[in-house]
């Protein structure tokens, strides 16, 4: 009898989860459609938001789920962007799917390397190591100008049509759809990973690594794995950026981008994929609107928004709303 009720509740749970994921995918798709029709002349910005959303999701995996503090995450994004860009400009790999694959692999390798370095330390030294990584990566890309174009940027990236059918057009429609599909696929895969036993182990490591070790699990090995996955996701974002803009600049390997990604994550709420997405959209949309409305003081206004969120919604926009509903739900029970 006990066995029966347990297995019944597991299938019920599973259905509820699948429903929730389906709703998540539909919401992303709906947002994408609304964006497409509301801002048909601004699809380049929307595609850029999509690429950065992948970076912020990837940062959430190590910072939000595993508790690793990093200010060098753009190194993984930049590795994906330069990987895909160099493949196209120097090796003639211009199929967008192949470029994407190269970006994902480059990002995963960059993730492994920075994971090995960053995870040597904890706390503030860890943060400093991550900053060192992004500066080293930036300088390396700057010096290797034969490959990367240095400070002029890497040009000459001409991606073919997607599946030979959809040419990348001047208005950025193909790139936008390509990006949204990529984001949805990444979102579905990550939803699965974060609630798998592996994802549970990662959350455990964030909350108490000593307990995880006392259970016989390897903390370091688990974190390195998550870093590689995170690198793959960031690399996909970088590749999307290279494919859609057809140029890769040093800004994709910058400390500024790393720090902004962290700000977006905190704004939306760490430890939740929805938080990462909402943080990215809010920050980038706000930045765009405010900088157009007031070109002189927009940074001040963005700063004020951040202070307000950190003071009044310390769990981030999504995190605070979710916590509110959870409290209400518990009272109602």
């Amino acid at each position, binding site marked *: 009898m006990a066995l029966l009720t347990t297995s019944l509740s597991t299938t019920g749970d599973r259905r509820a*989860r699948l429903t929730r994921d389906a709703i998540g995918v539909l919401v992303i798709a709906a947002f994408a459609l609304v964006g497409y029709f509301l801002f048909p002349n601004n699809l380049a910005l929307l595609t850029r938001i999509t690429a950065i959303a992948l970076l912020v999701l990837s940062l959430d995996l190590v910072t939000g789920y595993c508790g690793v503090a990093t200010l060098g995450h753009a190194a993984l994004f930049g590795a994906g962007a330069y990987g895909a860009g160099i493949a196209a400009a120097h090796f003639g790999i211009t199929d967008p799917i192949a470029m994407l694959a190269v970006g994902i692999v480059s990002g995963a390798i960059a993730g492994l390397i920075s994971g090995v370095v960053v995870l040597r330390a904890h706390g503030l030294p860890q943060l400093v190591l991550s900053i060192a990584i992004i500066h080293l990566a930036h300088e390396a890309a700057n010096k290797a100008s034969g490959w990367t174009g240095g400070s002029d940027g890497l040009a000459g990236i001409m991606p073919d049509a997607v599946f030979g059918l959809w040419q990348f057009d001047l208005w950025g429609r193909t790139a936008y759809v390509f990006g949204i599909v990529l984001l949805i696929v990444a979102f579905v895969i990550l939803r699965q*990973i974060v609630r*798998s*036993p592996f994802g549970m182990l990662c*959350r455990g490591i964030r909350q108490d690594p000593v*307990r995880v070790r006392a259970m016989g699990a*390897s903390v370091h090995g688990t974190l390195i794995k998550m870093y590689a996955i995170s690198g793959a996701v960031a690399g996909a974002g970088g590749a999307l950026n290279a494919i859609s803009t057809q140029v890769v600049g040093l800004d994709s390997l910058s400390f500024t981008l790393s720090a902004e990604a962290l700000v977006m994550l905190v704004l939306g709420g760490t430890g939740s994929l929805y938080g990462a997405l909402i943080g990215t959209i809010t920050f980038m949309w706000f930045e765009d609107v405010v900088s157009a409305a007031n070109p002189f003081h927009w940074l001040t206004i963005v700063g004020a928004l951040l202070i307000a969120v950190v003071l009044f919604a310390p769990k981030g926009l999504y995190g605070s709303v979710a916590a509110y509903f959870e409290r209400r739900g518990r009272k109602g029970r």
Partner: protein
Amino acid sequence: MSAIFDVRNLRKMFGGLAVTNDVSLSMAPGDRVALIGPNGAGKTTFVNLVTGNILPNSGTVTLGGEDVTRLGPTQRVRRGLVRSFQVTRLFSEMTPEEHVSLAILQREGRSGKMFASHRAMPGVMDEAHALLAKLGIAQLAGHRVSEIAYGQQRLLELALALALKPKVLLLDEPAAGVPQSDTARIEQAIADLPADLAVLMIEHDMDLVFRFAKRVIVLAAGEIIFDGSPDAVTKDARVRQAYLGSYADARSVA
């Protein structure tokens, strides 16, 4: 007697100070041993040596016939040496169900699975719920640990340890910090531990020690000064000397 757990001539120096000095002890399956000793006797160092958090200067630790002296803590856990903590260490945002499922999956080598869900594994879920029910906290399975009482968290720690199916269990002050009203449940849970499990309890609460242990080991200044039955320990002159110093002969034991 076949020892499941055997510590031989363990020695650890911090500078010139021997914090663990030539300590030997052996346990068979089913043993119930209490390790006691005054503050600074080296109990914590001993636990850290045995679990692999620090390495000894000399001596060996053997687990089920295998020398584990040079193995790290996680390797020892995988071989069946499991510990609990003096102050509860749990994942505050996770539920008891998740805790125990994760421990079971870890034991089975499946905790690294990315494209699966523990909720879709009936074997794991049934075992987790059975274990929580055995410890009387099944009704809390879906609550966050941060919402449940400290006494119940201690029971969950025991469930976690048992989920790993240990051969040797180290209980580090299992009743510390638990309100008086809950200690009975903890004691009952300890009394109900599997009969073939070797349990070493580090404890200050003498009532608990005398109810639990068939054998008491007293550590003082890094050395074992007594190893024998609970009845004999209170009468032992060296033990009284260690706990009470020069007052041992002047006053009766409180």
